[in-house]
């Protein structure tokens, strides 16, 4: 087990190295002029040269790459051109909001997706199954920005049940920052006013972000459940005289969830991606919106740092999933 984890960690380092190479070269090869973007079109040439020198942009690209990689090894992702702060510091500020949104929506998607999946497997071809099928097809085929706008239109603009954008209403006093995750901090500081308001704000973006994840989890759970229900050991469980409920929840479910866990890991990654759009639509102050803003002003250290960080989170999520696998499936324990 220890060796397995070590191997996975090494592999992760390799993947992250690959990602940083790719991100670095994409950002540096696109014909854009970050200094121009920073200083404006008609800055004096000396100032432009001085700025380039300061940013190391006058060095050959290989040297720049070397500097960047060396920085990463020291946990230094460079200085954001826009905020003038270390990118790591920016990430620390913006990432908790993204993480909170992602965790919230993955909890909802897993709960909803697994339940839908089980019901549509157990009651195959019933109305639950048909509903879940349509729900899922829409979920995987509708673009995030479209679902987002439609939900905003219905629940905010027409019905007025839920707030529109942001993490809190204008007049709600935010909780003292401990983890940076607003709901968690509200609980920790006992600020129930902020908790209630924060909860109302997170529902729509979490629903939008989690919709396609719910859809694919429901489909995989259904397929996996149907597969497990055909296995020999299910017949044994029935032959023991166990009731249908015990057969499904005690004997089939744990087996059926094994492939679902992998999907949850992948889904968590795609939630981080989806956060870019969702955060933009809902004005959510997270890392996704941070990266979009960085793109708009060609803040290349922020773009690279943010992307690399998301890749790191993605790999970590998958590592955790593989370890969970071993807990669920005794055959995987080595």
């Amino acid at each position: 087990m220890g060796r397995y984890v070590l191997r996975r960690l090494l592999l992760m380092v390799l993947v992250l190295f690959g990602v940083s190479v790719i991100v670095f070269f994409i950002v540096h090869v696109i014909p854009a002029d970050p200094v121009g973007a920073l200083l404006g079109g008609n800055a004096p040439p000396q100032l432009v040269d001085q700025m380039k020198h300061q940013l190391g942009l006058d060095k050959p690209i290989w040297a720049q790459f070397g500097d960047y990689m060396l920085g990463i090894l020291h946990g230094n992702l460079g200085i954001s051109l826009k905020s003038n702060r270390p990118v790591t510091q920016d990430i620390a500020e913006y990432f908790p909001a993204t993480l909170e949104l992602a965790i919230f929506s993955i909890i909802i998607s897993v709960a909803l997706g697994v339940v839908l999946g089980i019901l549509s497997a157990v009651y195959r071809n019933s109305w639950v199954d048909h509903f879940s099928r349509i729900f899922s097809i829409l979920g995987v085929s509708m673009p995030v920005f479209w679902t987002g706008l439609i939900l905003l239109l219905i629940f905010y603009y027409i019905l007025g049940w839920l707030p529109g954008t942001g993490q809190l209403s204008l007049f709600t006093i935010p909780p003292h920052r401990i983890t940076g995750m607003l709901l968690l901090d509200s609980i920790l500081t006992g600020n129930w006013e902020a908790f209630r308001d924060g909860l109302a704000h997170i529902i729509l973006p979490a629903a939008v972000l989690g919709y396609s994840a719910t859809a694919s989890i429901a489909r995989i759970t259904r397929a996996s459940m149907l597969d497990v229900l055909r296995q020999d050991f299910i017949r044994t469980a029935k032959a023991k005289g166990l009731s249908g409920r015990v057969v499904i929840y005690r004997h089939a479910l744990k087996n059926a969830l094994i492939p679902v866990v992998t999907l949850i890991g992948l889904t968590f990654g795609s939630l981080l991606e989806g956060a870019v759009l969702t955060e933009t639509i809902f004005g959510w102050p997270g890392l996704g919106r941070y990266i979009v803003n960085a793109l708009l002003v060609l803040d290349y250290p922020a773009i690279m740092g943010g992307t690399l960080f998301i890749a790191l989170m993605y790999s970590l999520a998958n590592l955790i999933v593989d370890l969970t696998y071993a807990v669920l499936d005794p055959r995987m324990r080595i």
Partner: protein
Amino acid sequence: MRGDLLDVRELKVVFYTYRGIIKALNGVELWMNHEERLGLIGETGCGKSVTSLSIMGLIEQPGEIISGDVYFEGKSMQKMSMEELHDMRGKKISMIFQEPVSALNPVMRIGFQVAESISRAKDIKIKEAYPEVLKMLELVGLDSKRTASLYPHELSGGMAQRAMIAMALSSNPKLLIADEPTSALDVTIQAQIMELLDELVREMGNAVILITHDMGVAAEFCDKIAVMYAGNVVERASTVDIFEEPLHPYTKGLLKAVPKIGQSKELVGITGTVPDLVNPPTGCRFHPRCPYAMNKCSQKMPPLIEAKPGHHVACYLYTQEGEHNAN
């Protein structure tokens, strides 16, 4: 009633598949008494497993019992409530299968799986069943403490089948169905498992249906033999009668491959192919392969009649209308 433990009457089971409707059981007749050992033999696909699953009440989608019934201790299973059916499986009938490792739940420890059976049979909590678990595992010759904490993939096929036997016998069932319990195991292990079954069943007094390919094993283990062909029981008699004086042309063909009782030999088919059960032959389903086939054989199915005392056969050679005799 023909058997005081089990009576299967004119059981018809079909499976709805994309290839068409598989007429798997075509009016099976089968009966047995308490503590009797019945061997069920016949080629692969003739309906042995489907028969045993019907007796367990486990025919499910895409299968359906379209007519006939199974009476267990005189009670119609078609008329039993869900609860009665579950109770019957938990307490009165048990089953062991061909692939012991895949018949056990891969994510549960053996001890738990045995405990579950005991708790079901004795209406006690699973936790309270553990002393009994160790006793049962010991009874089937396993290192009880260690085995209880293992997962199925950590057991050999033989050990897994012993664990299955422990599970199946923990309710001391009236009837144990063993569906080819040794065909997936090594030859040396096969003999050990059959010996173990023989010993335990003798002690506990369970009736057994043994489904097997091995005529030698059937001859040694069983009091009665029922021969199945393409969804019907075509002959049923005491083991001695079946081997010394087989009546049905199909049984005769089967036995040509086995020179002597007690000599283990695989069941070799007879010339011709196993019929397609989507479009089965009309009348006697054996007629395309039968050397004695007559005109009427392809028109109407011969009923299972008692040709000699205690010896039943479904063949026109033995009815009044039979025009000529075999041999």
